[in-house]
């Protein structure tokens, strides 16, 4: 599962030879993130976020396990045990702030990781499986983060849980029984809090499992790169260690500086003041908003303000609430089909003039707008803005991408990664091998005819 020129692990001492025979774990690490994994030499800083996401997962598990030692999932005492952690547990405030802000930073990193994938089309063949597993990880993260936010049992915890589980009530026929079954009652209470805690503890380990699959799937074709041109020969790659370990080390340092700045100086900035008020089922907050990282999807949920009716008859086909729920889940499910919606054989957005315009002037402002209006009250003009942005979101993925990939004329691609980095490389004919056809700078995607215009620039 690697290139032919990948370095091989050679145990030197008697002990490492012995270990390698019994359990070749050092060999696995060597091949996965060591010198035995050749990586394209031209990865830019956007390729740091996979490692950072892994770091965030470990950080959340470590801080979370420590918090769980002092927390009690019971509606009578949950809020108090969180305050106990903040006040009486040694450095408990640090653990809790690191965990709460860690969730935010995990999502920042994941969003940048996803946007990297969208811009450089990392989801295209042969890497579809990596992308699909990534979407699964994202969905699991959303579930985990949502349940984690309920645990402190503040006002936003309670009302957020009520609103989000209420979404299941919109499903026709089975909605209401399903909602009661999920909550273990008619409203969020002890049963719900307890199961949310249980699942919040479990899911990160499920995520870790899917992350292993994600990385496994990555090691089969190897990393993508900013040119989108596949690796052809040894000079296109460098070993992961020490080159990318050192680069990721620097990236991790920058990440930690920003992260600790938030933890120590602005720990409550990304939270909501209402969550420092203990949950009270009798008092509804003026504005119920989810955590910032759910706001785009919350905006899509709320964009559908009217039932789908047959005009002039008053017959309701689909209720507005259900439309919103379908759209919200659909907005993420659409990512599962992305590898087959975007058929352009060119991967990198850098060489796709039309795609690039829609990405920077369409999708990015659209996501920013959705985040903004998701946190705004449900009144005009925010509703109108959320509807425009939601319409663009679906048009972008379902209509614009398929059409653009059909009609766009991409810019000429470099012959190889080496040429992209050094400015020159052996032209076709003088190939030094690598097992691939050097003419095909871009592998044609299944189902599309390779087109002359996509051949490497001469």
């Amino acid at each position, binding site marked *: 599962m690697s290139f032919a020129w990948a370095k091989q692990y050679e145990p030197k001492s008697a002990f490492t030879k012995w270990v390698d025979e019994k359990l070749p774990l050092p060999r696995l690490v060597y091949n996965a993130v060591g010198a035995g994994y050749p990586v394209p030499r031209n990865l830019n800083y956007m390729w740091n976020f996979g490692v950072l996401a892994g770091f965030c997962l470990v950080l959340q598990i470590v801080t979370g396990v420590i918090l769980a030692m002092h927390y009690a999932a019971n509606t009578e005492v949950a809020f108090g045990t969180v305050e106990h952690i903040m006040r009486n547990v040694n450095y408990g*405030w640090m653990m809790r702030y690191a965990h709460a802000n860690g969730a935010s930073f995990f999502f920042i990193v994941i969003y940048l990781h996803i946007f990297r994938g969208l811009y450089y089309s990392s989801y295209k063949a042969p890497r579809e499986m990596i992308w699909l597993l990534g979407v699964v990880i994202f969905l699991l993260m959303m579930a985990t983060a949502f349940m984690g936010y309920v645990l402190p049992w503040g006002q936003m915890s309670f009302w957020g849980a009520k609103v989000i589980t209420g979404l299941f009530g919109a499903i026709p026929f089975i909605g209401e029984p399903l909602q009661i079954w999920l909550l273990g009652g008619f409203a969020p209470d002890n049963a719900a809090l307890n199961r949310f805690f249980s699942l919040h503890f479990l899911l990160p380990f499920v995520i870790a499992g899917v992350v292993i699959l994600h990385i496994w799937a990555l090691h089969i074709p190897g990393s993508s790169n900013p040119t989108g041109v596949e690796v052809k020969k040894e000079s296109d790659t460098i070993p992961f260690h020490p*080159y990318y370990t*050192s680069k990721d080390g620097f990236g991790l340092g920058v990440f930690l500086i920003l992260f600790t700045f938030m933890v120590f100086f602005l720990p409550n900035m990304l939270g909501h003041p209402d969550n420092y008020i203990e949950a009270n089922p009798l008092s509804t907050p003026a504005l119920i908003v989810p955590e910032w990282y759910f706001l785009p999807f919350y905006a899509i949920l709320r964009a559908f303000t009217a039932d789908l009716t047959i005009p002039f008859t008053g017959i309701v086909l689909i209720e507005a609430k259900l439309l919103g729920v379908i759209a919200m889940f659909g907005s993420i499910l659409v990512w599962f089909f992305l590898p087959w919606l975007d058929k352009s054989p060119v991967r990198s957005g850098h060489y796709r003039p039309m795609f690039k315009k829609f990405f920077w002037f369409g999708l990015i402002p659209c996501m920013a707008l959705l985040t903004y209006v998701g946190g705004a009250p449900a009144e*005009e003009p925010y509703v109108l803005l959320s509807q425009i942005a939601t319409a663009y979101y679906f048009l972008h993925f379902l209509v614009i991408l398929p059409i653009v990939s059909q009609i766009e004329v991409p810019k000429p691609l470099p012959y190889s990664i080496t040429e992209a980095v050094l400015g020159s490389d052996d032209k076709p004919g003088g190939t030094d091998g690598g097992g691939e056809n050097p003419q095909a700078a871009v592998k044609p995607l299944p189902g599309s005819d390779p087109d002359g215009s996509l051949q490497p620039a001469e």
Partner: protein
Amino acid sequence: MTIRLAGILIGLGITAVLVLWSLIPGAYNYAFGPPAEKPAYYVFKEKPVAPEGGFSFDGPLGKWDYAQLQRGYAVYKQVCSACHGLKYVAFRNLQELGYTDAQVRAEAATWNVPGIDPNTGEATTRPGEPTDYFPDPYPNNVAAAAANNNAIPPDLSLMTKARKDGTNYVYSLLNGYVDPDPEKLAKAQEQGFETPMGLYFNPWFSNVNLAMPPQLYPDLITYDDGTEATVPQMSADIAAFLTWTAEPSLIQRKQTGWFVIAFLIFATGLAFLSYKQIWAGKKSKTK
């Protein structure tokens, strides 16, 4: 091809439903319908303001002003504690305000906390000990509501974190029992605004009609350190004290932050240099 065609159809379908049923009627309403009315009290609402000179604990280099925290504690004890609890704070925590062990013991003993009679087992009260938490002024919410015109005085432990810009909010609110601006009042009254009996006008409160009467009057209490007890002074002192109760680790947090970030900047600098060293010669001009 099938997937893309289906995608385009579904995409156009979702957009059509959204635009035709929700967006166009909504936009029409927004453009030609009656303007959405904000509640009448909106004209009065004020953003929290800081006292002149701010607080000693503001900013990344902030420090507690122990004299101010002790004054704030005096305000809490003599004024607020009649109705508001402080249930997440223990008497032992008062040591962090600069009191000695003996002072904390003596101070705790001035409070009555719920206890059990050792002979009869009946519920009773006893003098507090450092390990006790501040007692709630009411036995339960029903009693609290009954004694306060149906409004339950909230626990103050976390008040400055439970409101936006909480420290300044507490200061502004306590210092903010003013008469409504006559012009705004005339306008709001047209929309049916009033301050009902038993409520008090305060533009810093969420709906500007607050159940808590004004509590602070000049020279209401005598500070041990001789500071003149003006209303803004007492408001600032209690706001500082409640900032401490909401987050006793505030200053420790910021100080730890300096060490952590200084170390990380150093370590990241080293990481950057080793990254450059390792990559030297691997990168050349691209174009």
